[in-house]
């Protein structure tokens, strides 16, 4: 197993390979893929295209096709999550940060596959996409304990139908999660951390964000619509899990 580590999008990427590292050109292409998304979609960069849209210096209809397509995809996710996932900041500015990291990860996977790399594990700031296996076994990932950064709640294998896992939490950088007004939902606890296992990283990442924002109602809705597994942590540390995660190493059914 080999590891390539680099920084992008304000975080650190850990890219592991089951065998030897691929060529330097392949690794550079992966890094360039992230940097390209960051250059266009980062609101932290005043010169990015989306910053120009946010500042009303660029009309949306004159923006690049790539920006408009990603915005349209984000709006689709807003519809599928009853607004729990949204590409708009509370002040109305378009913010695609909730989508772009996962999109860059998916694009990097295409780069790796095209280069002939089959066994790898891509961890970008805690969201993970995998391919193949390591030493003949599935890649195995842990889910961090939000109350103890040095401990894990459980460990799960990543398999072909569950290649991706994303975790959203209230400790998240910048918290690109705008909690909905939960009035009318009684005293149900809000989740402090939500992990979603899915076949692809965009679904996992978007739904982890949506369930963190939308609470139990959004969890029920997502489970009815999507083929995912979910582990939630509530404010007092209580855990719930779907069937596929209840058997995760380290967990037992209550």
């Amino acid at each position, binding site marked *: *197993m080999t*590891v390539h*580590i680099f920084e992008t999008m*304000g*975080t*650190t990427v*850990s890219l*592991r390979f089951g065998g030897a590292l691929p060529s330097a050109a392949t690794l550079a292409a992966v890094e360039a893929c992230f940097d390209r998304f960051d250059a266009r979609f980062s609101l932290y960069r005043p010169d990015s295209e989306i910053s120009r849209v946010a500042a009303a210096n660029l009309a949306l209809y004159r923006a690049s096709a790539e920006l408009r397509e990603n915005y349209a995809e984000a709006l689709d996710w807003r519809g599928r999550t009853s607004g729990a996932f949204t590409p708009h900041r509370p002040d109305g500015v378009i913010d695609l940060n909730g989508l772009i*990291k996962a999109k860059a990860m998916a694009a990097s996977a295409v780069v790796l596959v095209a280069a002939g790399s089959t066994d790898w*594990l891509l*961890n970008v*700031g*805690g*969201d*993970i996409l*995998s391919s193949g296996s390591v030493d003949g076994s599935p890649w*195995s*990932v*842990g*889910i*961090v*304990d*939000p109350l103890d*950064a*040095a*401990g*894990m*709640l*459980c*460990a799960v294998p990543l398999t072909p139908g569950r290649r991706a896992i*994303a*975790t*959203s*939490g*209230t*400790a*998240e*950088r910048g918290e690109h999660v705008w909690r909905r007004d939960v009035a009318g939902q009684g005293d149900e606890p809000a989740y402090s*951390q939500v*992990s979603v296992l899915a076949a692809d990283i965009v679904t996992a990442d978007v739904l982890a964000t949506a369930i963190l924002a939308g609470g139990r109602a959004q*969890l029920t809705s997502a*489970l009815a619509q999507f083929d995912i*597994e*979910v*582990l*939630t942590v509530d404010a007092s540390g*209580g*855990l*719930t*899990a*779907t*069937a*596929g995660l*209840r058997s995760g*190493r*380290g*967990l*037992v*059914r*209550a």
Partner: protein
Amino acid sequence: MRRRAIGLSILSSAAVLAVGWQLGSGTQPLSSSVSQATDAAVPGTVTPAAPTTGAATPPATSAPAASASGTFTGASAQTRFGAVQVQIVVADGTVTDVVALQLTDEDQKSVSISNRAEPVLRQQVLAAQSANVQGVSGATYTTDGYLTSLQSALDQAGL
């Protein structure tokens, strides 16, 4: 009192049971005590199938409702999910669980289609080094946060 409990748990699963009522017809009757329990909550032409697993009470017509226990599975019916059947778990005459099962195309093996998040407990504290994991998923860390993260520890240890 017990009968009320049965009614409430059935009504709370009304969406799932709606499938079950459709597929009940044409199957052999469940033990009479459970039929009695379900009839109490929802009138209809329900005739669930015989128990398949568990310590089901024999279908003695004189058995009181409170004594029925076991897992009972209805016949399959075609729905938008494909072939579906409903399974109920009964403990001492109370329906404790209702699960919609889907028969997969390949081997007709039943899988749950009602994936629900249910409470779980930590069995042990897993340490990254000993848990044999290659990655750790958590809320997004910054470049600085990475330095103190479990992922960083794994990377530095070459694990």
